[in-house]
């Protein structure tokens, strides 16, 4: 029978040649694709380099306050003279960097507590059945396009907060004590594993309480209008689209990715550690705080880093919710303009090869370098952590 399978030398060499060709193709294609993708950084660097020896602009002047015509004191300004026509263009990169970091910082302020709380709850307390459903749900949240979130933030949330500022503030302030109260009242009757679901109607109750409390509070404490009070007493002017709104919207966008990575880190802590602590009589929360969190801290850290990377580069949300005013203020109720948004708005209009064009590319290079470094750092930390978990699990 074996004669039917015996092979001709010709056929053999054809197969071998084909194997070599396929391998060569894969190698060439693979390296080509990888080089092309990696080429982004190189392209940006090459395009930005001429700035250093161009006479049009001093690199140092980008980062220092400059005295401009019509201004009393030196200031940081980003006014690339798109509209004015006359006057000199003002290229101060600092307001853009500031806006970018401010937006990212506020979004982390919103996202990190939510994400870490959710991660801790689903890693240690939640019923496994609910957890299996929660992950894909939050993945869907992550997939929500930025333009939709930006639209909701800029056109729905911003005007609504404009009208209901006190209500919003009260709601946010009421949330933590309200949830604690729910725990105190209901914990014996309802299982902790499903708390995430049965707290939802409770949130409605809190909403209602806040809406009842807000006008009353506003009338008594803030002389009838929170906005006026803020302006008079704290000197904070309220802009319709401001850093807080950007922070809320981007926090919503960033929260799921922080959650997913932090949850991975927390639930990846070897079970024997957790069981060891619980066997000593620790409550779940003590276990979390004293054993799981220290063990998973690098993973949680890298989750936040990746969240920061996303927040820094997000374009549409900032573009639509921030007002795009290149300011440098610490007032969170003022507008801002980020690097990504500037690129999106100005680059199509900037003349290729000009100073403005190259400066926008510099902004892109900064974004690229920042996110790439942050992500690499996070990835290295994460892989270290995985190795540590494997060691902790140890040999049986």
């Amino acid at each position: 029978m074996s004669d039917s399978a015996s092979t001709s030398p010709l056929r053999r060499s054809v197969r071998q040649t084909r194997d070599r060709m396929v391998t060569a193709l894969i190698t060439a294609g693979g390296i080509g694709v990888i080089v092309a993708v990696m080429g982004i950084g190189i392209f940006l660097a090459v395009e930005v380099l001429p700035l250093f020896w161009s006479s049009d602009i001093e690199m140092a002047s980008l980062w220092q306050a400059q005295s401009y015509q019509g201004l009393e004191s030196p200031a940081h300004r980003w006014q690339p003279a798109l509209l004015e026509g006359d006057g000199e263009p003002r290229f101060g990169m600092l307001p853009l960097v500031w806006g970018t970091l401010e937006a990212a910082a506020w979004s982390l302020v919103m996202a990190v507590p939510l994400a870490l709380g959710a991660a801790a709850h689903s890693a240690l307390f939640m019923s496994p059945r609910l957890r299996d459903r929660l992950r894909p749900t939050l993945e869907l949240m992550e997939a929500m396009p930025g333009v939709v979130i930006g639209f909701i933030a800029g056109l729905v949330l911003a005007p609504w907060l404009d009208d209901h500022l006190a209500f919003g503030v009260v709601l946010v302030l009421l949330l933590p004590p309200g949830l604690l109260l729910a725990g105190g009242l209901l914990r014996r009757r309802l299982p902790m594993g499903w708390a995430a679901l049965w707290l939802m109607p409770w949130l409605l109750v809190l909403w209602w309480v806040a809406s009842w409390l807000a006008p009353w509070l506003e009338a008594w404490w803030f002389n009838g209008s929170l906005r006026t009070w803020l302006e008079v007493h704290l000197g904070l002017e309220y802009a319709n689209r401001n850093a807080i709104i950007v922070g809320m919207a981007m926090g919503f966008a960033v929260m799921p990715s922080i959650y997913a990575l932090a949850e991975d880190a927390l639930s990846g802590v070897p079970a024997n550690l957790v069981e060891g602590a619980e066997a000593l009589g620790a409550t779940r929360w003590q276990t979390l705080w004293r054993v799981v969190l220290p063990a998973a801290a690098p993973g949680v850290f890298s989750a936040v880093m990746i969240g920061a990377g996303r927040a820094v580069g997000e374009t549409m949300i900032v573009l639509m919710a921030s007002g795009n005013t290149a300011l440098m203020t610490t007032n969170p109720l003022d507008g801002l303009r980020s690097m990504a948004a500037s690129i999106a708005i100005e680059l199509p209009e900037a003349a290729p090869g000009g100073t403005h064009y190259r400066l926008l590319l510099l902004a892109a290079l900064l974004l690229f370098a920042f996110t790439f470094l942050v992500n690499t750092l996070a990835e290295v930390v994460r892989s270290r952590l995985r190795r540590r978990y494997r060691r902790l699990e140890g040999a049986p």
Partner: protein
Amino acid sequence: MTVMQHTAHGSRALIDFSPQATSLEVRDFGLRYGDKTALSNLTLRVPRHRVTAFIGPSGCGKSTLLRALNRLHDLNETVTREGSIHLEGQDIHASSMVVAELRRRVGMVFQVPNPFPMSIYDNVAFGLRLQGHLPKRQVDDVVEWALQSAALWDEVKDRLRASAWSLSGGQQQRLVIARTLAVGPEVLLLDEPASALDPISSLKVEELIRNLKSTLTLVLVTHNMQQAARVSDYTAFLQDGELVEYGPTDTLFTNPRLARTENYITGRMA
């Protein structure tokens, strides 16, 4: 017929066959994973149309040796080797030897059955189709012959188009053997082929091995002493990457020359 040699620097055994009766010959073969030595200084001859068993404790290198016989280590870049292996007098690492052709001639069956996620028929025809386009009739014939040789035909002839993964473990292992037979190998390497199976399936596979030796040279790695004693003609005992003793199975099991061998066999069999 058999000459045992015991050298000072290690155990070195040689069964003195006439070259005509030798299928595979291993000469001064050594193999390392990175800087960990897995096999050293092995020399042995595998007789044609016989069943040769490799036994020894876990990690002694018996599976490593088996995989070296059809160059499966080529995939692993950390592996370095010395010495040579000859199939019918031809160096298997020679540049004239095409590795795919070598593997066709030296088939291998693994510990856990690994049928491909395709139909039973396609699994058996897989190797055949690699060799080029054959008329369907011919493929049909070979598939039937291979399944019959592997004693599986009667169980699957009505569902050749069913997924191979729907078979039981024992059937899957015989399917894998049939798949290997279909390409017409000269040598069949079996890496603990019955260890993942229940006793009845295991017996069926053993019976199959005994039947196959009329046309094939078989090399069997096993943990199971009784199995080695039941099916093999010759047995090699390996320990720590070295060949300790090699001889006819009857002699090795009843009257081992070395204390190490005896300890292992009796320790396990007691």
